[in-house]
């Protein structure tokens, strides 16, 4: 093979692998039946949450003539102690849970990524200080950290988002710092610097894009974890305030009526279970699709 043909091959190779790498990752994700099942479940739950106002009536509509009714054609999942339709409330609950999960993960990303990149890229004293801070946050078990912050901040949607996000920040700082440390030592970074690229350009153009894969995988799993933590706070009566139809809060209220009315606590919990499982399936599938080496290990 002459040097000229090899060069043009590589050239073509580079051009054609960029789009096809993405496509094949997507193909691999879809081909994993379990990940595909997770995507379908997530899609349905997300669609029904978004369409809730079109599909269902008022989730807070009280009906004292229909209190604590078992599942029936009129109320497929039954009614609660105030006669509110549980199917309506479970579907509306998805809006709250998805919203809290998404906001918490975005907030954790917004804080965790810059701190992680700077810690890994700067090294030295900065890195040492940041890592001690992370150690400190990690000394509190995750759920306990969120719970402690709620104790200080008080209940309500905003405080739940903040508490869940803070508990997730150390995960991102560690992850991004680790990726940055690896990327920083690559030859192409040295090449970029030799060509006169500044720190800012190197971080924005080389380091951040290369951190993307682990961050996407982690965020998918983290969405499930955030929803679970928020629901746990709700269950304890320390999350979203009633009458907002949040799954964990509904479950906590339902436990009072458990002995005679099983359905009040059962269905909101089933919804949490399904959403978290779907995020875990998609997250595991994404990891396998985007990072085949990691997938082969487990």
């Amino acid at each position: 093979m002459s040097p000229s043909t090899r060069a043009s091959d590589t050239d073509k190779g580079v051009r054609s692998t960029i789009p096809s790498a993405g496509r094949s990752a997507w193909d691999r994700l879809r081909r994993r039946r379990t990940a595909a099942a997770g995507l379908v479940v997530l899609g349905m739950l997300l669609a029904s949450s978004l369409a809730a106002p079109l599909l269902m009536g008022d989730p807070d509509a009280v009906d004292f003539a229909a209190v604590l009714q078992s599942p029936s054609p009129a109320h497929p999942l039954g009614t609660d102690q105030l006669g509110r339709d549980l199917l309506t409330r479970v579907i509306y609950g998805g809006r709250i849970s998805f919203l809290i999960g998404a906001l918490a993960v975005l907030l954790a990303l917004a804080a965790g990524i810059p701190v992680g990149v700077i810690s890994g890229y700067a090294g030295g004293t900065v890195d040492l200080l940041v890592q001690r801070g992370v150690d400190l946050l990690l000394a509190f078990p995750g759920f306990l950290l969120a719970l402690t912050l709620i104790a200080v901040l008080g209940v309500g949607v905003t405080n739940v988002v903040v508490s869940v996000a803070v508990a997730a920040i150390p995960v991102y700082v560690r992850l991004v710092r680790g990726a940055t440390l690896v990327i920083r030592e690559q030859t192409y970074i040295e090449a970029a610097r030799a060509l006169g690229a500044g720190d800012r350009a190197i971080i924005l153009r080389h380091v951040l894009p290369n951190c993307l894969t682990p961050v996407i995988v982690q965020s998918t799993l983290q969405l499930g974890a955030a929803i679970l933590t928020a629901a746990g706070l709700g269950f304890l009566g320390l999350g979203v305030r009633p009458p907002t139809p949040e799954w964990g809060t509904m479950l906590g209220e339902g436990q009072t009526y458990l002995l005679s009315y099983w359905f009040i606590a059962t269905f909101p919990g089933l919804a949490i279970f399904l959403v978290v499982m779907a995020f875990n399936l998609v997250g595991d599938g994404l990891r396998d699709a985007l990072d085949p080496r990691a997938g082969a290990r487990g």
Partner: protein
Amino acid sequence: MRAPLGRYVVRRLLYALPTLLGVTLAVFLLVRLIPGDPARLIAGLLASDDEVQRLRVELGLDRPMPEQYARFLASVLAGNFGLSAVTRTPVIEEIGIRMRATLTLAVTSTALAVAAGLSAGVLAAAYHNTAVDYAVMMAALGGVSVPVFWLGIMLMLLFAVHLHWVPAGGSGTPAHLILPAVTLAAFSTAIVARMTRGSLLETLNLDFVRTARAKGIGEGAVIIRHALRNALIPVVTVVGLQFGTLLGGAVLTETTFAWPGLGRLLVSAITARDYPVIQGIVIVFAAMFVVVNLVTDLLYVAVDPRIRYG
């Protein structure tokens, strides 16, 4: 080269100290972040103005922050977490009473998780890519996804309300421990099973396992006697890390089953805004977690002869 082990242990112990100090500082600062008068918060809503003023001087809340922290740290080190704002009993006594219940639950669940998770993980690896493997992996997926409080309620409905095999909640007899322990163990069991399976599958590809097989040793003996010992090393770490999730799960499990532990006390303290109790329990929980991680790290070194502690 056993000599440096002692030095490693000492260094690892010294390393845990700043973390523990940081925990007390974080908790100290957090409680002072709460809007309002800290003396009023610590005294509780029932205290009179005189009492609040006395407490302010007594706690040194009129002093500068660094001095306040030094005093706080000194009393925490002496085991003095102050008085509960609600019951007026020393916080350390309330913690002492509840500690045993939480430890019983946490230790039983960890033991369950290790026993069940190891067995399931070994089975899945031994029958890799068969129905057994898939069943274990599906169950593990369920275990990491299920909300612990909902699992508890479902088990309670089935085994206590319908079948009447075990009590639905409370404590006192070993039967009361069964449902909370199983509920709390679910997540850790799933993690241990996944880790054991992955680690064992990797080990089974190593040269020394091929040698063992070549010698004509049966597959069962290869797994149990040769591969598992090596595969266990990462599992030890995972069990330690799990302990944090377990403590968080304990708060939810104790509330579900009316189990009289620290977690339930913490939730009622948060509801009652009893800050001295919240402060004490959070410090105790974090300290337990730091200590368990320390023990795990030391165990890890003890288990794996390949690690050079330096």
